[in-house]
Protein backbone atom coordinates (compact mmCIF):
# COMPACT_ATOMS: atom_id res chain seq x y z
CA UNK A 1 0.00 0.00 0.00
CA UNK A 2 1.04 3.55 -0.66
CA UNK A 3 0.36 4.43 2.96
CA UNK A 4 3.67 4.99 4.62
CA UNK A 5 1.42 6.91 6.99
CA UNK A 6 0.41 10.40 6.07
CA UNK A 7 2.13 11.38 9.23
CA UNK A 8 5.23 9.87 10.65
CA UNK A 9 4.45 9.09 14.27
CA UNK A 10 7.46 11.10 15.34
CA UNK A 11 6.01 14.18 13.72
CA UNK A 12 2.67 13.92 15.50
CA UNK A 13 4.51 13.42 18.75
CA UNK A 14 6.68 16.49 18.30
CA UNK A 15 3.61 18.52 17.37
CA UNK A 16 1.91 17.47 20.60
CA UNK A 17 4.97 18.58 22.53
CA UNK A 18 5.11 21.95 20.79
CA UNK A 19 2.03 23.02 22.64
CA UNK A 20 3.03 23.83 26.18
CA UNK A 21 -0.16 22.71 27.92
CA UNK A 22 -0.16 19.30 26.28
CA UNK A 23 3.56 18.86 26.84
CA UNK A 24 3.17 19.58 30.56
CA UNK A 25 0.12 17.35 30.77
CA UNK A 26 1.95 14.52 29.07
CA UNK A 27 4.88 14.95 31.45
CA UNK A 28 2.55 14.83 34.43
CA UNK A 29 0.69 11.79 33.18
CA UNK A 30 3.91 9.91 32.50
CA UNK A 31 5.04 10.81 36.02
CA UNK A 32 1.82 9.41 37.44
CA UNK A 33 2.28 6.24 35.40
CA UNK A 34 5.85 5.82 36.66
CA UNK A 35 4.88 6.39 40.29
CA UNK A 36 2.01 3.97 40.06
CA UNK A 37 4.10 1.41 38.24
CA UNK A 38 6.82 1.61 40.86
CA UNK A 39 4.34 1.34 43.74
CA UNK A 40 5.88 -1.85 45.22
CA UNK A 41 9.23 -0.09 45.44
CA UNK A 42 8.33 3.41 46.52
CA UNK A 43 5.28 2.79 48.68
CA UNK A 44 6.26 3.44 52.32
CA UNK A 45 4.29 0.49 53.68
CA UNK A 46 2.07 -2.39 52.71
CA UNK A 47 -1.25 -0.86 51.55
CA UNK A 48 -3.17 -3.58 53.41
CA UNK A 49 -1.31 -3.20 56.70
CA UNK A 50 -3.78 -2.13 59.38
CA UNK A 51 -2.84 -0.32 62.51
CA UNK A 52 -5.96 0.18 64.58
CA UNK A 53 -4.37 2.45 67.14
CA UNK A 54 -3.31 4.91 64.48
CA UNK A 55 -6.63 5.14 62.69
CA UNK A 56 -7.57 8.46 61.04
CA UNK A 57 -4.20 10.05 61.66
CA UNK A 58 -3.88 13.34 59.79
CA UNK A 59 -1.03 13.75 57.29
CA UNK A 60 2.21 14.16 59.14
CA UNK A 61 5.35 12.38 60.21
CA UNK A 62 4.04 8.86 60.70
CA UNK A 63 1.77 8.87 57.64
CA UNK A 64 2.77 11.29 54.87
CA UNK A 65 -0.79 11.56 53.55
CA UNK A 66 -2.49 10.36 56.71
CA UNK A 67 -4.11 7.05 57.55
CA UNK A 68 -7.62 5.75 56.98
CA UNK A 69 -10.24 4.31 59.32
CA UNK A 70 -8.29 1.07 59.63
CA UNK A 71 -5.00 2.84 60.12
CA UNK A 72 -3.77 2.00 56.60
CA UNK A 73 -1.29 4.32 54.91
CA UNK A 74 -3.13 6.55 52.42
CA UNK A 75 -0.05 7.21 50.26
CA UNK A 76 0.66 3.52 49.78
CA UNK A 77 -2.95 2.80 49.03
CA UNK A 78 -3.08 5.71 46.59
CA UNK A 79 -0.16 4.32 44.61
CA UNK A 80 -1.51 0.81 44.45
CA UNK A 81 -5.03 2.04 43.74
CA UNK A 82 -3.73 4.04 40.77
CA UNK A 83 -2.57 0.87 39.06
CA UNK A 84 -6.05 -0.61 39.05
CA UNK A 85 -7.88 2.64 38.25
CA UNK A 86 -5.64 3.61 35.36
CA UNK A 87 -5.61 0.10 34.00
CA UNK A 88 -9.39 0.01 33.99
CA UNK A 89 -9.62 3.48 32.43
CA UNK A 90 -7.13 2.67 29.69
CA UNK A 91 -8.54 -0.80 29.05
CA UNK A 92 -12.09 0.48 28.72
CA UNK A 93 -11.12 3.50 26.59
CA UNK A 94 -9.11 1.34 24.23
CA UNK A 95 -11.44 -1.60 23.81
CA UNK A 96 -14.63 0.46 23.57
CA UNK A 97 -12.95 2.67 20.96
CA UNK A 98 -11.92 -0.28 18.82
CA UNK A 99 -15.31 -1.95 19.10
CA UNK A 100 -17.18 1.31 18.64
CA UNK A 101 -15.20 2.22 15.53
CA UNK A 102 -15.84 -1.17 13.93
CA UNK A 103 -19.55 -1.12 14.70
CA UNK A 104 -19.96 2.55 13.82
CA UNK A 105 -18.21 2.19 10.48
CA UNK A 106 -20.38 -0.76 9.54
CA UNK A 107 -23.58 1.01 10.55
CA UNK A 108 -22.61 4.21 8.79
CA UNK A 109 -21.29 2.72 5.60
CA UNK A 110 -23.52 -0.25 4.90
CA UNK A 111 -27.07 0.95 4.75
CA UNK A 112 -28.67 -2.45 5.21
CA UNK A 113 -26.87 -2.98 8.51
CA UNK A 114 -27.66 0.46 9.84
CA UNK A 115 -31.22 -0.16 10.98
CA UNK A 116 -30.37 -3.19 13.08
CA UNK A 117 -27.16 -1.80 14.60
CA UNK A 118 -28.68 1.57 15.37
CA UNK A 119 -31.64 0.03 17.15
CA UNK A 120 -29.31 -2.08 19.29
CA UNK A 121 -27.23 1.01 20.10
CA UNK A 122 -30.38 2.93 21.05
CA UNK A 123 -31.55 0.09 23.24
CA UNK A 124 -28.21 -0.09 25.03
CA UNK A 125 -28.05 3.65 25.53
CA UNK A 126 -31.55 3.63 26.98
CA UNK A 127 -30.22 1.75 30.02
CA UNK A 128 -28.56 3.83 32.72
CA UNK A 129 -24.82 3.18 32.37
CA UNK A 130 -24.28 1.93 35.87
CA UNK A 131 -27.30 -0.36 35.81
CA UNK A 132 -26.13 -2.02 32.63
CA UNK A 133 -22.63 -2.36 34.06
CA UNK A 134 -23.96 -3.89 37.27
CA UNK A 135 -25.96 -6.51 35.43
CA UNK A 136 -23.04 -7.34 33.15
CA UNK A 137 -20.61 -7.72 36.05
CA UNK A 138 -23.22 -9.73 37.91
CA UNK A 139 -23.38 -12.12 34.97
CA UNK A 140 -19.64 -12.20 34.31
CA UNK A 141 -18.46 -12.20 37.93
CA UNK A 142 -16.35 -9.61 39.70
CA UNK A 143 -12.78 -9.24 38.59
CA UNK A 144 -10.75 -6.51 36.97
CA UNK A 145 -10.97 -8.06 33.50
CA UNK A 146 -14.72 -8.49 33.83
CA UNK A 147 -15.15 -4.90 34.97
CA UNK A 148 -13.20 -3.79 31.90
CA UNK A 149 -15.33 -5.99 29.64
CA UNK A 150 -18.57 -4.79 31.21
CA UNK A 151 -17.67 -1.11 31.04
CA UNK A 152 -16.39 -1.46 27.48
CA UNK A 153 -19.75 -2.87 26.46
CA UNK A 154 -21.46 0.00 28.24
CA UNK A 155 -19.38 2.70 26.53
CA UNK A 156 -19.03 1.17 23.06
CA UNK A 157 -22.37 2.63 21.86
CA UNK A 158 -21.13 6.16 22.57
CA UNK A 159 -18.19 5.74 20.22
CA UNK A 160 -20.24 3.77 17.72
CA UNK A 161 -22.87 6.47 17.52
CA UNK A 162 -20.34 9.23 16.87
CA UNK A 163 -18.50 7.12 14.30
CA UNK A 164 -21.76 6.24 12.56
CA UNK A 165 -22.88 9.87 12.33
CA UNK A 166 -19.53 11.04 10.96
CA UNK A 167 -19.37 8.15 8.52
CA UNK A 168 -22.81 9.01 7.17
CA UNK A 169 -21.57 12.50 6.35
CA UNK A 170 -18.25 11.46 4.85
CA UNK A 171 -19.53 8.62 2.69
CA UNK A 172 -21.51 11.13 0.63
CA UNK A 173 -18.54 13.44 0.01
CA UNK A 174 -17.12 13.67 -3.50
CA UNK A 175 -13.76 12.25 -2.52
CA UNK A 176 -15.43 9.00 -1.52
CA UNK A 177 -17.25 8.99 -4.83
CA UNK A 178 -13.92 9.65 -6.55
CA UNK A 179 -12.44 6.70 -4.69
CA UNK A 180 -15.20 4.46 -6.01
CA UNK A 181 -14.68 5.62 -9.55
CA UNK A 182 -10.93 5.10 -9.13
CA UNK A 183 -11.67 1.55 -8.06
CA UNK A 184 -10.51 1.73 -4.44
CA UNK A 185 -11.57 -1.11 -2.18
CA UNK A 186 -14.13 -0.65 0.58
CA UNK A 187 -11.45 -1.27 3.20
CA UNK A 188 -9.29 1.48 1.69
CA UNK A 189 -12.22 3.89 1.64
CA UNK A 190 -13.16 3.07 5.22
CA UNK A 191 -9.65 3.43 6.63
CA UNK A 192 -8.05 6.16 4.54
CA UNK A 193 -11.04 8.31 3.74
CA UNK A 194 -13.49 7.76 6.56
CA UNK A 195 -11.53 6.75 9.65
CA UNK A 196 -8.72 9.21 9.05
CA UNK A 197 -11.20 12.06 8.98
CA UNK A 198 -13.05 11.10 12.15
CA UNK A 199 -10.05 10.48 14.37
CA UNK A 200 -10.49 13.76 16.25
CA UNK A 201 -13.95 13.12 17.72
CA UNK A 202 -12.97 9.54 18.51
CA UNK A 203 -9.90 10.64 20.46
CA UNK A 204 -11.85 13.25 22.36
CA UNK A 205 -14.57 10.77 23.19
CA UNK A 206 -12.02 8.14 24.21
CA UNK A 207 -10.47 10.47 26.77
CA UNK A 208 -13.94 11.08 28.19
CA UNK A 209 -14.56 7.38 28.40
CA UNK A 210 -11.24 6.90 30.20
CA UNK A 211 -12.59 9.24 32.85
CA UNK A 212 -16.09 7.81 33.01
CA UNK A 213 -14.65 4.32 33.34
CA UNK A 214 -12.54 5.27 36.34
CA UNK A 215 -15.55 6.85 38.01
CA UNK A 216 -17.91 4.04 37.08
CA UNK A 217 -15.48 1.52 38.48
CA UNK A 218 -15.66 3.41 41.77
CA UNK A 219 -19.43 3.14 41.72
CA UNK A 220 -19.33 -0.56 40.93
CA UNK A 221 -16.85 -1.20 43.71
CA UNK A 222 -19.00 0.74 46.13
CA UNK A 223 -22.00 -1.37 45.24
CA UNK A 224 -19.96 -4.51 45.70
CA UNK A 225 -20.02 -5.62 42.07
CA UNK A 226 -16.68 -4.20 41.05
CA UNK A 227 -13.17 -5.32 41.59
CA UNK A 228 -12.63 -7.31 44.76
CA UNK A 229 -13.43 -4.67 47.41
CA UNK A 230 -10.25 -5.30 49.35
CA UNK A 231 -8.20 -4.16 46.32
CA UNK A 232 -7.80 -0.42 46.61
CA UNK A 233 -8.85 1.75 43.70
CA UNK A 234 -9.18 5.53 43.71
CA UNK A 235 -12.93 5.19 43.54
CA UNK A 236 -13.08 2.76 46.45
CA UNK A 237 -10.88 5.06 48.51
CA UNK A 238 -13.24 7.98 47.93
CA UNK A 239 -16.26 5.89 48.80
CA UNK A 240 -14.67 4.61 51.98
CA UNK A 241 -13.51 8.10 52.95
CA UNK A 242 -16.96 9.61 52.50
CA UNK A 243 -18.08 8.39 55.90
CA UNK A 244 -15.31 10.31 57.64
CA UNK A 245 -15.54 13.48 55.60
CA UNK A 246 -15.93 15.70 58.67
CA UNK A 247 -13.18 14.02 60.68
CA UNK A 248 -10.66 13.26 57.95
CA UNK A 249 -11.35 15.19 54.73
CA UNK A 250 -7.88 14.24 53.41
CA UNK A 251 -9.22 10.70 52.91
CA UNK A 252 -11.21 11.86 49.90
CA UNK A 253 -9.00 14.81 49.05
CA UNK A 254 -5.98 12.85 47.85
CA UNK A 255 -7.69 10.20 45.74
CA UNK A 256 -9.95 12.97 44.43
CA UNK A 257 -6.95 15.01 43.38
CA UNK A 258 -5.37 11.92 41.85
CA UNK A 259 -8.45 11.32 39.69
CA UNK A 260 -8.86 15.00 38.78
CA UNK A 261 -5.29 15.58 37.74
CA UNK A 262 -4.94 12.32 35.84
CA UNK A 263 -8.14 13.11 33.99
CA UNK A 264 -7.17 16.71 33.32
CA UNK A 265 -3.74 15.80 32.02
CA UNK A 266 -5.20 13.07 29.88
CA UNK A 267 -7.69 15.42 28.31
CA UNK A 268 -5.03 18.02 27.58
CA UNK A 269 -2.95 15.34 25.89
CA UNK A 270 -6.05 14.31 23.96
CA UNK A 271 -6.61 17.89 22.83
CA UNK A 272 -3.04 18.19 21.64
CA UNK A 273 -3.24 14.88 19.86
CA UNK A 274 -6.45 15.83 18.13
CA UNK A 275 -5.00 19.06 16.81
CA UNK A 276 -1.70 17.47 15.82
CA UNK A 277 -3.60 14.89 13.77
CA UNK A 278 -5.36 17.59 11.79
CA UNK A 279 -3.01 18.92 9.11
CA UNK A 280 -5.00 22.14 8.86
CA UNK A 281 -4.47 23.04 12.50
CA UNK A 282 -1.07 21.40 12.90
CA UNK A 283 0.53 24.05 10.72
CA UNK A 284 -0.59 26.84 12.97
CA UNK A 285 0.55 25.24 16.17
Amino acid at each position, binding site marked *: *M*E*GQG*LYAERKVFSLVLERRSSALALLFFVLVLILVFLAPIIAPTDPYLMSVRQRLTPPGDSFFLGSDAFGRDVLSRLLYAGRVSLMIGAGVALSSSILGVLIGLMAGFFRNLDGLISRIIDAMMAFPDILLAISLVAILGGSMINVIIALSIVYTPRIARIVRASTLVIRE*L*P*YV*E*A*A*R*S*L*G*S*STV*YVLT*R*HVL*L*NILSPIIVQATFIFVYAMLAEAGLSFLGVGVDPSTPTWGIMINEGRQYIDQAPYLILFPGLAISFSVLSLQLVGDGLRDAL*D*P*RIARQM
Partner: protein
Amino acid sequence: MTELLVSIRGLSKVFQSEKGPVFAVQDVYLDIPKGDIVGLVGESGSGKTTLGRTLLRLIEPTSGEIVFDGKNMNSLDPSSLRALRQRMQIIFQDPVASLNPRLRVKEIISEGLVAHGVGSRKERIEKVTALLEEVGLQSEDMHRFPHEFSGGQRQRIGIARALALDPEFIVADESVSALDVSIQAQILNLLLDIRDQRGLTMLFIAHDLSVVEYLCDMVAVMYLGRIVEIGPSQNVYSSPSHPYTRSLLSAIPEPKPGSHRERELLQGDIPSPLNPPTGCVFRTRCRYALDSCADTIPTLVELDQGHQAACLRLSEIS
Protein backbone atom coordinates in the same frame (compact mmCIF):
# COMPACT_ATOMS: atom_id res chain seq x y z
CA MET B 1 -19.01 9.04 -39.60
CA THR B 2 -16.93 9.49 -36.49
CA GLU B 3 -16.52 6.61 -34.12
CA LEU B 4 -18.67 6.64 -31.00
CA LEU B 5 -17.01 6.15 -27.64
CA VAL B 6 -20.10 6.29 -25.49
CA SER B 7 -23.63 5.56 -26.52
CA ILE B 8 -26.52 5.96 -24.12
CA ARG B 9 -29.70 4.21 -25.16
CA GLY B 10 -32.98 4.82 -23.43
CA LEU B 11 -31.40 5.49 -20.06
CA SER B 12 -33.71 6.15 -17.10
CA LYS B 13 -33.07 6.58 -13.44
CA VAL B 14 -35.86 6.60 -10.89
CA PHE B 15 -34.96 7.21 -7.26
CA GLN B 16 -37.26 5.85 -4.61
CA SER B 17 -37.96 8.50 -2.02
CA GLU B 18 -40.35 8.63 0.91
CA LYS B 19 -42.66 10.82 -1.09
CA GLY B 20 -42.66 8.46 -4.04
CA PRO B 21 -40.58 7.83 -7.13
CA VAL B 22 -38.36 10.67 -8.37
CA PHE B 23 -37.91 10.65 -12.12
CA ALA B 24 -34.39 12.03 -12.34
CA VAL B 25 -33.47 10.86 -15.83
CA GLN B 26 -36.05 9.73 -18.36
CA ASP B 27 -35.42 7.85 -21.56
CA VAL B 28 -32.23 9.61 -22.59
CA TYR B 29 -30.44 8.82 -25.85
CA LEU B 30 -27.02 10.38 -26.28
CA ASP B 31 -24.08 9.53 -28.52
CA ILE B 32 -20.64 10.85 -27.66
CA PRO B 33 -18.12 10.68 -30.52
CA LYS B 34 -14.52 9.84 -29.72
CA GLY B 35 -12.39 12.91 -29.06
CA ASP B 36 -15.31 15.31 -28.70
CA ILE B 37 -16.36 17.41 -25.78
CA VAL B 38 -20.09 17.20 -25.31
CA GLY B 39 -21.72 19.83 -23.15
CA LEU B 40 -24.72 18.94 -21.03
CA VAL B 41 -26.64 21.96 -19.84
CA GLY B 42 -29.79 22.54 -17.86
CA GLU B 43 -30.90 24.18 -14.66
CA SER B 44 -30.59 22.64 -11.20
CA GLY B 45 -32.72 19.54 -10.89
CA SER B 46 -32.71 18.77 -14.59
CA GLY B 47 -30.94 15.47 -13.98
CA LYS B 48 -27.66 16.29 -15.65
CA THR B 49 -25.53 15.27 -12.67
CA THR B 50 -27.47 12.04 -12.25
CA LEU B 51 -26.92 11.27 -15.92
CA GLY B 52 -23.17 11.80 -15.53
CA ARG B 53 -23.01 9.61 -12.42
CA THR B 54 -25.04 6.89 -14.07
CA LEU B 55 -22.66 6.85 -17.02
CA LEU B 56 -19.81 6.03 -14.66
CA ARG B 57 -21.91 3.50 -12.80
CA LEU B 58 -21.58 5.48 -9.60
CA ILE B 59 -25.37 5.23 -9.73
CA GLU B 60 -27.06 2.14 -11.12
CA PRO B 61 -29.49 2.98 -13.92
CA THR B 62 -33.09 1.86 -13.56
CA SER B 63 -33.35 0.94 -17.21
CA GLY B 64 -31.59 1.51 -20.48
CA GLU B 65 -28.17 0.70 -21.82
CA ILE B 66 -24.77 2.30 -21.84
CA VAL B 67 -22.39 1.14 -24.53
CA PHE B 68 -18.78 2.10 -23.94
CA ASP B 69 -16.35 1.48 -26.79
CA GLY B 70 -18.61 -1.18 -28.25
CA LYS B 71 -19.20 -2.99 -24.95
CA ASN B 72 -22.58 -3.01 -23.31
CA MET B 73 -21.94 -2.20 -19.67
CA ASN B 74 -25.09 -4.00 -18.53
CA SER B 75 -23.84 -7.37 -19.66
CA LEU B 76 -20.37 -7.18 -18.13
CA ASP B 77 -19.23 -9.25 -15.18
CA PRO B 78 -17.89 -7.30 -12.16
CA SER B 79 -14.20 -7.69 -13.04
CA SER B 80 -14.60 -6.46 -16.62
CA LEU B 81 -16.77 -3.64 -15.36
CA ARG B 82 -14.00 -2.69 -12.97
CA ALA B 83 -11.49 -2.74 -15.81
CA LEU B 84 -13.81 -0.64 -17.95
CA ARG B 85 -14.36 1.88 -15.20
CA GLN B 86 -10.64 2.47 -15.13
CA ARG B 87 -11.08 4.03 -18.57
CA MET B 88 -13.64 6.57 -17.42
CA GLN B 89 -13.15 9.10 -14.66
CA ILE B 90 -14.85 12.09 -13.11
CA ILE B 91 -13.84 15.63 -12.17
CA PHE B 92 -16.02 17.19 -9.50
CA GLN B 93 -17.56 20.55 -8.91
CA ASP B 94 -16.43 21.30 -5.38
CA PRO B 95 -12.65 21.58 -5.26
CA VAL B 96 -12.74 21.45 -1.45
CA ALA B 97 -14.96 18.45 -0.79
CA SER B 98 -13.51 16.40 -3.61
CA LEU B 99 -10.09 16.07 -1.97
CA ASN B 100 -9.57 14.22 1.30
CA PRO B 101 -8.13 16.87 3.66
CA ARG B 102 -6.05 14.33 5.56
CA LEU B 103 -4.10 12.98 2.61
CA ARG B 104 -1.11 14.44 0.88
CA VAL B 105 -1.37 15.36 -2.79
CA LYS B 106 0.74 12.40 -3.86
CA GLU B 107 -1.56 10.02 -2.02
CA ILE B 108 -4.62 11.65 -3.56
CA ILE B 109 -3.31 11.49 -7.10
CA SER B 110 -1.91 7.98 -6.82
CA GLU B 111 -5.06 6.51 -5.25
CA GLY B 112 -6.24 4.98 -8.52
CA LEU B 113 -2.79 3.60 -9.28
CA VAL B 114 -2.68 1.95 -5.86
CA ALA B 115 -6.19 0.60 -6.24
CA HIS B 116 -5.34 -1.04 -9.54
CA GLY B 117 -1.85 -2.06 -8.46
CA VAL B 118 -0.14 -0.06 -11.20
CA GLY B 119 3.63 0.20 -10.93
CA SER B 120 6.01 0.14 -7.99
CA ARG B 121 6.05 2.89 -5.43
CA LYS B 122 8.88 4.61 -7.26
CA GLU B 123 7.07 4.43 -10.59
CA ARG B 124 3.94 5.83 -9.00
CA ILE B 125 5.87 8.81 -7.64
CA GLU B 126 7.29 9.40 -11.13
CA LYS B 127 3.79 9.24 -12.54
CA VAL B 128 2.52 11.71 -9.94
CA THR B 129 5.37 14.09 -10.80
CA ALA B 130 4.50 13.90 -14.50
CA LEU B 131 0.80 14.45 -13.79
CA LEU B 132 1.44 17.45 -11.56
CA GLU B 133 3.49 19.04 -14.31
CA GLU B 134 0.85 18.20 -16.88
CA VAL B 135 -1.80 20.09 -14.92
CA GLY B 136 0.49 23.04 -14.25
CA LEU B 137 1.60 22.35 -10.69
CA GLN B 138 5.05 21.63 -9.34
CA SER B 139 6.42 18.27 -8.37
CA GLU B 140 7.21 19.49 -4.83
CA ASP B 141 3.50 20.08 -4.36
CA MET B 142 2.99 16.34 -3.93
CA HIS B 143 4.10 16.54 -0.30
CA ARG B 144 1.56 19.18 0.63
CA PHE B 145 -2.00 18.93 1.86
CA PRO B 146 -5.08 20.13 -0.04
CA HIS B 147 -5.78 23.06 2.29
CA GLU B 148 -2.49 24.64 1.25
CA PHE B 149 -3.80 25.22 -2.27
CA SER B 150 -6.21 27.70 -3.84
CA GLY B 151 -9.48 26.60 -5.43
CA GLY B 152 -8.04 26.58 -8.93
CA GLN B 153 -4.99 24.60 -7.82
CA ARG B 154 -7.19 22.08 -6.05
CA GLN B 155 -9.21 21.64 -9.18
CA ARG B 156 -5.93 20.91 -10.97
CA ILE B 157 -5.16 18.26 -8.37
CA GLY B 158 -8.60 16.76 -9.00
CA ILE B 159 -7.87 16.72 -12.72
CA ALA B 160 -4.50 15.07 -12.14
CA ARG B 161 -6.20 12.39 -10.03
CA ALA B 162 -8.71 11.73 -12.81
CA LEU B 163 -5.91 11.47 -15.37
CA ALA B 164 -3.76 9.11 -13.30
CA LEU B 165 -5.27 5.98 -14.79
CA ASP B 166 -5.01 7.37 -18.33
CA PRO B 167 -8.76 7.34 -18.94
CA GLU B 168 -10.29 7.80 -22.38
CA PHE B 169 -13.48 9.38 -21.15
CA ILE B 170 -13.97 12.02 -18.48
CA VAL B 171 -17.14 13.37 -16.97
CA ALA B 172 -16.53 16.93 -15.79
CA ASP B 173 -19.39 17.71 -13.43
CA GLU B 174 -19.70 21.49 -13.13
CA SER B 175 -15.94 21.48 -12.86
CA VAL B 176 -15.45 25.20 -13.15
CA SER B 177 -18.63 26.64 -11.67
CA ALA B 178 -17.17 26.90 -8.16
CA LEU B 179 -14.19 28.92 -9.37
CA ASP B 180 -13.55 32.61 -9.97
CA VAL B 181 -14.10 33.69 -13.55
CA SER B 182 -10.40 34.34 -14.19
CA ILE B 183 -9.53 30.90 -12.82
CA GLN B 184 -12.34 29.31 -14.83
CA ALA B 185 -10.63 30.33 -18.06
CA GLN B 186 -7.35 28.76 -16.94
CA ILE B 187 -9.01 25.49 -16.05
CA LEU B 188 -11.01 25.44 -19.28
CA ASN B 189 -7.84 25.95 -21.30
CA LEU B 190 -6.18 23.21 -19.30
CA LEU B 191 -9.04 20.85 -20.13
CA LEU B 192 -8.75 21.76 -23.82
CA ASP B 193 -4.99 21.19 -23.79
CA ILE B 194 -5.41 17.83 -22.12
CA ARG B 195 -8.08 16.85 -24.60
CA ASP B 196 -5.79 17.73 -27.50
CA GLN B 197 -2.75 15.99 -26.08
CA ARG B 198 -4.46 12.85 -24.88
CA GLY B 199 -7.28 12.66 -27.38
CA LEU B 200 -9.77 12.52 -24.53
CA THR B 201 -13.50 12.38 -24.85
CA MET B 202 -15.42 14.47 -22.36
CA LEU B 203 -18.91 15.01 -21.08
CA PHE B 204 -18.93 18.52 -19.71
CA ILE B 205 -21.83 19.15 -17.36
CA ALA B 206 -22.54 22.83 -16.75
CA HIS B 207 -25.18 25.43 -16.23
CA ASP B 208 -23.08 28.22 -17.66
CA LEU B 209 -23.89 28.43 -21.36
CA SER B 210 -21.03 30.69 -22.39
CA VAL B 211 -18.54 28.25 -20.90
CA VAL B 212 -20.12 25.42 -22.86
CA GLU B 213 -20.06 27.41 -26.07
CA TYR B 214 -16.35 28.05 -25.64
CA LEU B 215 -15.43 24.48 -24.80
CA CYS B 216 -17.79 22.04 -26.44
CA ASP B 217 -18.14 20.53 -29.88
CA MET B 218 -21.66 19.39 -29.16
CA VAL B 219 -24.26 20.47 -26.67
CA ALA B 220 -27.26 18.70 -25.18
CA VAL B 221 -29.93 20.62 -23.29
CA MET B 222 -31.71 18.80 -20.49
CA TYR B 223 -34.95 19.69 -18.85
CA LEU B 224 -36.55 17.66 -16.07
CA GLY B 225 -34.71 14.47 -16.90
CA ARG B 226 -35.14 14.63 -20.67
CA ILE B 227 -32.95 15.92 -23.47
CA VAL B 228 -34.96 18.57 -25.27
CA GLU B 229 -32.39 19.71 -27.79
CA ILE B 230 -29.05 18.43 -28.98
CA GLY B 231 -26.66 19.35 -31.75
CA PRO B 232 -23.31 20.79 -32.74
CA SER B 233 -22.58 23.82 -30.57
CA GLN B 234 -22.57 26.27 -33.47
CA ASN B 235 -26.00 25.21 -34.67
CA VAL B 236 -27.62 25.18 -31.26
CA TYR B 237 -26.18 28.56 -30.33
CA SER B 238 -26.92 30.23 -33.65
CA SER B 239 -30.36 28.76 -34.16
CA PRO B 240 -31.86 27.41 -30.96
CA SER B 241 -35.08 25.58 -31.77
CA HIS B 242 -36.65 24.36 -28.58
CA PRO B 243 -38.46 27.08 -26.60
CA TYR B 244 -36.47 26.10 -23.50
CA THR B 245 -33.12 26.47 -25.26
CA ARG B 246 -34.22 29.84 -26.56
CA SER B 247 -35.03 31.11 -23.09
CA LEU B 248 -31.75 29.78 -21.77
CA LEU B 249 -29.74 31.46 -24.49
CA SER B 250 -31.57 34.73 -24.15
CA ALA B 251 -30.52 34.74 -20.50
CA ILE B 252 -26.84 35.02 -21.41
CA PRO B 253 -25.77 38.56 -20.58
CA GLU B 254 -24.93 40.68 -23.59
CA PRO B 255 -21.40 42.06 -23.38
CA LYS B 256 -22.32 45.17 -25.43
CA PRO B 257 -24.04 47.83 -23.35
CA GLY B 258 -27.14 49.42 -24.80
CA SER B 259 -27.90 46.62 -27.19
CA HIS B 260 -31.44 45.34 -27.07
CA ARG B 261 -32.81 42.03 -28.07
CA GLU B 262 -35.93 40.11 -27.47
CA ARG B 263 -35.67 38.06 -24.31
CA GLU B 264 -37.79 35.04 -23.63
CA LEU B 265 -38.09 35.04 -19.90
CA LEU B 266 -39.21 31.91 -18.12
CA GLN B 267 -41.83 32.08 -15.44
CA GLY B 268 -41.78 29.99 -12.32
CA ASP B 269 -39.58 27.11 -11.26
CA ILE B 270 -38.78 23.75 -12.69
CA PRO B 271 -41.60 21.35 -11.71
CA SER B 272 -40.88 18.61 -9.18
CA PRO B 273 -39.47 15.42 -10.66
CA LEU B 274 -41.69 13.65 -8.12
CA ASN B 275 -44.63 14.53 -10.29
CA PRO B 276 -43.47 15.56 -13.75
CA PRO B 277 -46.05 17.03 -16.16
CA THR B 278 -47.65 14.65 -18.62
CA GLY B 279 -46.72 14.89 -22.27
CA CYS B 280 -44.08 17.51 -22.85
CA VAL B 281 -42.28 18.16 -19.55
CA PHE B 282 -41.69 21.79 -20.47
CA ARG B 283 -45.29 22.68 -21.27
CA THR B 284 -46.03 24.19 -17.83
CA ARG B 285 -43.56 26.98 -18.51
CA CYS B 286 -43.73 27.15 -22.28
CA ARG B 287 -45.25 30.23 -23.91
CA TYR B 288 -46.13 28.20 -27.01
CA ALA B 289 -47.82 25.34 -25.16
CA LEU B 290 -51.17 24.06 -26.41
CA ASP B 291 -53.57 21.63 -24.83
CA SER B 292 -52.27 18.93 -27.11
CA CYS B 293 -48.82 19.24 -25.53
CA ALA B 294 -50.17 17.43 -22.46
CA ASP B 295 -51.05 14.33 -24.45
CA THR B 296 -47.93 13.26 -26.32
CA ILE B 297 -44.31 13.11 -25.27
CA PRO B 298 -42.43 14.84 -28.07
CA THR B 299 -39.55 12.91 -29.63
CA LEU B 300 -36.32 14.39 -30.93
CA VAL B 301 -36.75 15.53 -34.51
CA GLU B 302 -33.83 16.03 -36.87
CA LEU B 303 -33.63 19.67 -37.96
CA ASP B 304 -30.23 19.88 -39.45
CA GLN B 305 -27.22 17.64 -39.56
CA GLY B 306 -27.05 16.21 -36.06
CA HIS B 307 -29.21 19.02 -34.68
CA GLN B 308 -32.33 17.65 -33.02
CA ALA B 309 -35.05 19.10 -30.84
CA ALA B 310 -38.09 17.64 -29.10
CA CYS B 311 -41.09 19.92 -29.50
CA LEU B 312 -44.47 19.31 -31.11
CA ARG B 313 -44.71 22.79 -32.53
CA LEU B 314 -41.17 23.00 -33.85
CA SER B 315 -42.17 23.91 -37.38
CA GLU B 316 -44.66 26.56 -36.29
CA ILE B 317 -42.49 28.45 -33.85
CA SER B 318 -39.15 28.55 -35.58
